[in-house]
């Protein structure tokens, strides 16, 4: 997809995010908006996925993902961006986004396999687990001699979980060099800035000390920079070390009143706030 297409897709995904969270009056818009550029880039440009279509026209989804690149969302609370991207990529009907967080939906508050939503490979939401799961998937690919990438997205607040550091230590020792982790380094978590709540300090220094190669992405809300960072990460992969992209983003990006604050981490806009937000987010590909 060219850069114009990515821009249109990302704009539409941002509308989907705000509308989903507004509709159910719950969810996490801030981090979802901030990560839209990366997740759109992965699914529409960077990842090799199974392009087979089922009879109903939707993408065929196989959980084991053999000969596919895989993506795991460890910070599952940004499910609105994940669901929007999966729907618009063709895994399930875009109209299903209207069921987000509602009763009898496949779009659970946090991503789940339990309701068999195509595109989801493991449940996430309880933080800190996705990197470990991605390590397992990367080992499986190596055992099968598949030459594919395993991507995993984590939050920066999530770096406070102890299990993360078990996996950060393990991955280089296991030489999982097709593993590319992405940290959404927006500096915010629910209770405040990460600095105030429990300072992560320098994640680059920490990951390098554990044996990772790192890529610094200064503006994760610029699609061209995102593409360049993913290119750099892929070039650094396959050389014995896992790679982490330290992605600086703006939480709430695209909606002025959601930016520069942690207050929209897990809050839903009311009707007026939705109208204001949608005025700032162009409808490029049609609302659900």
């Amino acid at each position, binding site marked *: 997809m060219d850069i114009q297409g990515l821009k249109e897709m990302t704009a539409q995904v941002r509308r989907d995010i705000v509308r989903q969270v507004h509709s159910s009056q719950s969810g996490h818009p801030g981090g979802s908006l901030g990560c839209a550029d990366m997740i759109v880039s992965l699914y529409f440009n960077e990842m090799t996925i199974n392009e087979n279509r089922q009879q109903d026209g939707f993408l065929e989804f196989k959980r084991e*993902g053999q000969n596919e690149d895989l993506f795991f969302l460890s910070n599952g609370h940004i499910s609105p961006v994940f669901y929007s991207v999966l729907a618009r990529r063709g895994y399930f009907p875009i109209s299903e986004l209207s069921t987000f967080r509602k009763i009898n939906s496949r779009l659970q508050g946090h991503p789940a396999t339990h309701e068999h939503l195509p595109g989801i490979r493991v449940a996430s939401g309880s933080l800190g687990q996705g990197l470990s799961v991605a390590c397992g998937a990367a080992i499986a690919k190596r055992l099968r001699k598949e030459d594919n990438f395993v991507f995993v997205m984590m939050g920066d607040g999530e770096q406070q979980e102890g299990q993360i550091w078990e996996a950060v230590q393990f991955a280089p020792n296991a030489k999982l060099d097709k593993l590319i982790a992405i940290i959404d380094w927006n500096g915010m978590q629910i209770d405040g800035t990460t600095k105030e709540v429990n300072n992560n300090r320098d994640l680059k220094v920490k990951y390098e000390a554990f044996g990772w190669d790192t890529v610094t992405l200064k503006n994760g809300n610029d699609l061209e920079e995102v593409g360049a960072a993913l290119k750099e990460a892929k070039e650094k992969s396959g050389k014995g070390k896992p790679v982490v992209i330290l992605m600086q983003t703006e939480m709430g990006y695209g909606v002025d009143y959601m930016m520069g604050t942690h207050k929209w981490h897990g809050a839903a806009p009311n009707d007026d706030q939705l109208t204001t937000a949608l005025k700032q987010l162009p409808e490029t590909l049609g609302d659900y």
Partner: protein
Amino acid sequence: MKKYTFTEKKDTRSGFGAGMAELGKSHPNVLALCADLVASLKLDAFIKENPERFVQVGIAEANMIGISAGLALSGYVPYATTFANFGSGRVYDQIRQSVAYSGTNVKIAVSHAGLTLGEDGATHQILEDIAMMRAMPEMTVINPCDYNQTKAATIAVADFVGPVYLRFGRPVMPVFTDPDQKFEIGKAWMVNEGADVSIFATGHLVWEAILAGEMLEADGIDAEIINLHTIKPLDEEAILKSVTKTGCAVTAEEHQLNGGLGDAVCQVLSRNLPSPVEMVGVNNSFGESGEPAQLMQKYGLDAKSIVAAVKKVIDRKKV
């Protein structure tokens, strides 16, 4: 009373190791993971023959569960191994989200369960794991009784699709079950048919139940002994059939009374066939250091305790 004899004593964890060695040959999709306890889990034979199918995770059990989930969703059958304490309570949330809720085909195979871990003491003597794992939706819970049954269960769960918590132990115990047994998940094993009381036992307590049965026979009590190696799903039919005949039950397990096999049996009986029940298990306390046999005696988990419980429950039946 059917006679049970044994010619040797072996630990159930060695049964697990033997099962893994067989799976190494028969099931190329089976992998083993361990958190720095390879010798304790008796994985040496599997690793020697299949080094590429073993993942040493180090002392990082949460990571081990997550890695196992990633391997399982990719189509492998990972056995995540450690001590029962570190494979249940320590990683409850990882098992809950990445394994049970995610429906990943992970086998959590844990040794050193219960008091018989012995000298290491209460920090390592998990007595709540059955309760935790029973409460978890989608989880199958198995606690085999001797070397042969543990080996058979280890092999059987490889072909079962779904998360399993397979619990076994450290000490050497009589080997009294059939070496060629077919292990059926969820199917009770009739150890001895009897008429006066139903003894439902799991794990190391099955042998104690057999000893108790012999002592009871000398006192003129005809005990039915049933091995519930699968605690979840529970063989309700076998329980109800037996208690319909005997009218009372004793449960026996190396676990807390709260939430264990006894509670599970009571749930079945109170809903379907209210009957007097006495429970042998640890009564709301932690363990302590000591030799396994000393601990089993001190905490009331031996044949003598089962005999006392049987006499009590038979008295209650008469009222």
